[in-house]
């Protein structure tokens, strides 16, 4: 038995029944899931959560499903790594990494949102799921959908390199390569979603899909010992993740799971696609769309649907947003790997580099607890590091040759 009251427009507050719809018929504002928090407060305790399996579904009362979880039963509850080496290097007190490089099954936080979206799709009795994606989302819909037995349609721009789509094709979805640019694919998918009775995860299922991101926030609070940290740095593409991490903490406080909440939320973007950071830095709440040009492809959303709401959360919590150049992203990916042994995708580089910038400019204090959300695995974007990593030492198959190199390495260390 779920605790969803219905859907509610974020702009005009108009209420709707639980249906696969995503936009208010009156003001075209986005719809969001509304819950019965009084009932949830009665139904959930810390102890109850702790007794459940370590997956994202341990917070099921705060997720928009009516029955049992059906997809992604092993997803979520990734490690919260205390990053002592990195903290020392940057000069911080207490730094943690929410490590979503290891989400089951496709190694990015999209496995969380898709788990919720496809469970909801099943409840709505859809037999086909779809998305438009160039990477992580496509992987996750393809994989989760395969196991759950959905027909799957993935839309990509035809210009996308073949190597990017192998990690989706292996699950044998119907991959539709659209002969057009990103804008054409966006427009087409919007039309397809309106015409066919499919669960388009980030269109008509979006209100439910997006709620899956809250589980990162829930997990951070639980893994910090049922406390909210002082700062959280979140990478921004559509801006949805940032708003949901904050919503999660507020919900935990509202139902009495955590007591105090004084967390500042910070947004991280690439300079080549930073419409949210630009608005925050300019002190305006108007998000001006941009044409993305960055190596951080998973954050390359030029017209972010939740950009306005993300900037509002940043303002409300006293956080800030920054953007970082491609070289800073690469350097940060290497720094994270070298200090903490975590290989993050380019978006992780954006988050680490942004946090360092925010520390240097004093926006994040060196004292207190800081959590960085690292949202995807570096194995997915290895090409970004081409020519930027250490080189192997080539030797002849002889001890003498090895010892010559060893001597050189020892002198350098």
């Amino acid at each position, binding site marked *: 038995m779920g605790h969803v009251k219905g859907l509610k427009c974020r702009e005009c507050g108009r209420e709707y029944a639980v249906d696969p719809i*995503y936009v208010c018929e*009156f003001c075209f504002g986005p719809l969001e899931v509304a819950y019965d928090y009084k009932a949830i407060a009665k139904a959930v305790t810390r102890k109850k959560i702790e007794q459940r399996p370590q997956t994202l579904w341990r917070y099921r009362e705060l997720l928009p499903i009516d029955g049992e979880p059906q997809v992604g039963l092993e997803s979520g509850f990734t490690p919260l790594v205390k990053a002592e080496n990195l903290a020392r290097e940057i000069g911080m007190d207490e730094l943690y990494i929410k490590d979503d490089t290891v989400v089951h099954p496709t190694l990015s936080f999209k496995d969380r949102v898709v788990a919720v979206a496809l469970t909801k799709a099943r409840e709505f009795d859809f037999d086909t799921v779809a998305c438009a*994606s160039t990477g*992580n989302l496509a992987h996750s819909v393809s994989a989760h959908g395969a196991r759950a037995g959905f027909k799957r349609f993935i839309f990509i721009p035809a210009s996308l390199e073949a190597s990017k789509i192998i990690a989706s094709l292996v699950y044998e979805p119907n991959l539709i390569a659209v002969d057009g640019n*990103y804008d054409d694919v*966006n427009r087409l998918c919007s039309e397809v979603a309106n015409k066919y009775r499919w669960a388009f995860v*980030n269109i008509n299922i979006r209100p439910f899909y997006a709620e899956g991101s809250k589980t990162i926030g829930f997990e951070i609070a639980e893994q910090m010992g049922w406390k909210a940290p002082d700062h959280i740095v979140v990478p921004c593409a559509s801006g949805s993740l940032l708003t949901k991490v904050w919503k999660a903490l507020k919900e935990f406080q509202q139902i009495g799971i955590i007591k105090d909440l004084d967390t500042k939320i910070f947004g991280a973007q690439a300079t080549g696609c930073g419409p949210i950071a630009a608005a925050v830095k300019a002190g305006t709440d108007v998000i001006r769309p941009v044409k993305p040009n960055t190596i951080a492809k998973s954050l390359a959303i030029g*017209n972010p*649907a939740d950009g306005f709401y993300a900037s509002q959360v940043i303002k409300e919590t006293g956080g800030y947003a920054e953007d970082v150049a491609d070289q800073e992203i690469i350097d940060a990916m290497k720094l994270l790997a070298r200090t903490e042994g975590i290989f993050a995708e380019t978006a992780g580089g954006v988050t680490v580099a942004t946090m360092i910038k925010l520390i240097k400019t004093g926006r994040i204090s060196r004292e207190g607890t800081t959590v960085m959300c690292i949202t995807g695995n570096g194995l997915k974007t290895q090409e970004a590091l081409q020519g930027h990593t250490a080189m192997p030492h080539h030797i002849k198959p002889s001890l003498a040759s090895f010892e010559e190199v060893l001597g050189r390495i020892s002198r350098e260390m």
Partner: protein
Amino acid sequence: MKMRVRLTFPQELIKEPVIFTMAKQFNVMPNIRRARVTETVGEMVLELEGEDASLQEGVRFLKAKGIEVELIEGDIIE
């Protein structure tokens, strides 16, 4: 055919009757749902209704004027 769009007006166009001109010139019916005008920028969320070709021409006209025209859903490719 109907189309739901978000328009962002640069400052110099806020005082111009651009929507009216587009509606008249291309026979497109605008239905404004939400609007916000600040000192520096104007934002408008609206539905456009008309023949497919008229809608395309109307949107092209707005873009040529310097107005940013985006889908209400935002960018869908993630």
